[in-house]
């Protein structure tokens, strides 16, 4: 906020805001939680109870409760939970401010363009993030035979490692749930576009419906993905552990699809927020970048899925 000076530009100068600083603290808490929750690797010697409480792997307690053994409370749980809630609170506060500023008309045309640049750049970096996972996947998928050639005695069943969940378990049937999910996402892509155009033409009712449908489809996708995971998890019934730790393929499969699922979740929430804002009368037909950004993001998530479907599910399932 320039004080007494007359401001003769349309840029958006923001008064001091607590959110970034609080984000830093939230991130720290979350980070400590992550380590404590996953890395309970300190062997219990009883020397340092505080540290051991902190590092008593939250993961172990989850396993314990999953296997019906009583789960003692560990540091990991609590700290990670606090971190996540803290982060959610900060995000809420931050984006609420943004929405208000937008309503207050701070988002002049030039600022609006800036927001677009920002969103495009953000999606670019998301894309590079997935490049990392796909690179890993292709390396494992295409060059496993080469590596096997290097060292047969270590990788005698390398091709199986690299193309199926676990020895014996044939990889997921691409044309079952995955195909349905593909259709779901493609459909949701159309509904979100419908919502956008409806809003542009001032048909708020249609826009709300479009968004509602999109969100529902998003949730449906997540549910099906969950079902598929659980099924795979039970493939260990045949004595094999077809799970994230089974082998390279399992790892790549679950981390890639998992991170995609996580992004679907984010996108769904993003769209849901837009929906709620519309119900509250927000998002004008001439100015609604929130919705456009959500739509862009949703399409991005959609494209990533198409790649996953084409390669992770079809190509490797066949080549395996």
């Amino acid at each position: 906020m320039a004080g007494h000076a007359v401001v003769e530009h349309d840029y958006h100068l923001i008064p001091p805001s607590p959110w970034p600083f609080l984000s830093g603290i939230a991130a720290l808490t979350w980070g400590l939680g992550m380590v404590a929750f996953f890395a309970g690797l300190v062997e219990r010697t009883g020397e340092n109870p505080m540290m051991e409480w902190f590092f008593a792997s939250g993961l172990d307690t989850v396993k314990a409760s999953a296997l019906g053994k009583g789960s003692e409370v560990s540091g990991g749980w609590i700290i990670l939970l606090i971190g996540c809630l803290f982060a959610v609170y900060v995000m809420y506060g931050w984006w609420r401010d943004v929405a208000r500023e937008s309503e207050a008309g701070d988002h002049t045309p030039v600022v609006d363009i800036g927001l677009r640049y920002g969103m495009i750049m953000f999606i670019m970096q998301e894309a590079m993030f997935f490049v990392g996972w796909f690179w890993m996947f292709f390396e494992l998928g295409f060059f496993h035979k080469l590596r096997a050639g290097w060292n047969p005695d270590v990788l005698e069943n390398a091709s199986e490692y690299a193309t199926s969940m676990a020895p014996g378990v044939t990889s997921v049937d691409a044309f079952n749930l995955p195909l349905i999910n593909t259709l779901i996402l493609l459909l949701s892509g159309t509904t979100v576009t419908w919502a956008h155009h409806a809003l542009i033409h001032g048909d708020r009712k249609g826009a709300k419906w479009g968004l509602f449908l999109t969100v529902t489809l998003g949730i449906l996708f997540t549910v099906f993905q969950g079902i598929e995971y659980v099924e795979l998890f039970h493939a260990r019934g045949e004595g094999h552990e077809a799970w994230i730790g089974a082998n390279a393929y399992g790892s790549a499969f679950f981390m890639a699809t998992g991170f995609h699922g996580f992004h679907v979740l984010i996108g769904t929430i993003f769209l849901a927020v837009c929906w709620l804002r519309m119900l509250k009368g927000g998002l004008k037909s001439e100015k609604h970048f929130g919705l456009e950004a959500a739509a862009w993001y949703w399409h991005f998530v959609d494209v990533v899925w198409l790649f996953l479907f084409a390669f992770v599910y079809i190509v490797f399932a066949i080549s395996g």
Partner: protein
Amino acid sequence: MRLSRPNFKSFIAGSAAALALGGAAFANKPTPGGWWLQEAASPVMEELTRVHNIVFVIICVILLVVTVLMAYIMIRFREKANPVPSKTTHHVGLEVVWTIVPVLILLAMVGPSMRLLYMQDRLPETEMTIKAIGNTWNWEYEYVDYENVDSFVANPLDKAEAKSKGVPYLLATDNALVVPIGTKIKVLVTSVNNMHSWAMPAFGVKMDAVPGLVNETWFEATKEGTFYGQCSEICGALHYKMPIEIEVVSKAEFARWVANDGAFATRNASIENLPVTRIAAPK
């Protein structure tokens, strides 16, 4: 064994070998306070040294040109000497030149560099294969071709031991890898836990030992003597303490070493009397 009647050939050969070894004994480990590449003891290392020297000259010339130019500018165009700055900010000719010239220099550099690269990589018909297995923190060696020579672990000597034996600390091991001279030896390098790197500067060899992979490299020793290298990929606390020691002996000596299930007839097969044994070597 029967000594043939003294002839000058063998005498010369012997003294020559002794001289060569005298040289080798100096080349086989880092030189005290040394500031140049270790002396080459394999064809690859000779080529490597050559290429290094070519590139070295090139970069020195470049550095010299830049330095001299800068010195001149700094003096000629200091404020006192040149109160009114010129305003020229363009000279297409110049810009083209200093784009093209580096390109040409690099092209000149690429030739030898590539030849060396392919020479290093493409191992010629192998005459012998050795497996080096990195372990935290020592090297295990297998003589793939001789099942009577069983694999052994080469541990570093601690300070006191090294001193008493008069061998260099952090370079010498308790069991040297024994190889024949003038033989193309393929080395399979792998690891059982952390990554390591099997390196022998005098041979121009360095190959990472990666768990789950078997990497290939090769060398051909051209000098007899004991050669030292050190683990060259961080592998944990004792990374500095898993040296590589190679003892290069005559083919005959090596044959005897193998026949002896991987031990020298007289463990102190001293290098001095090698020429003699060479004369007596059965064909």
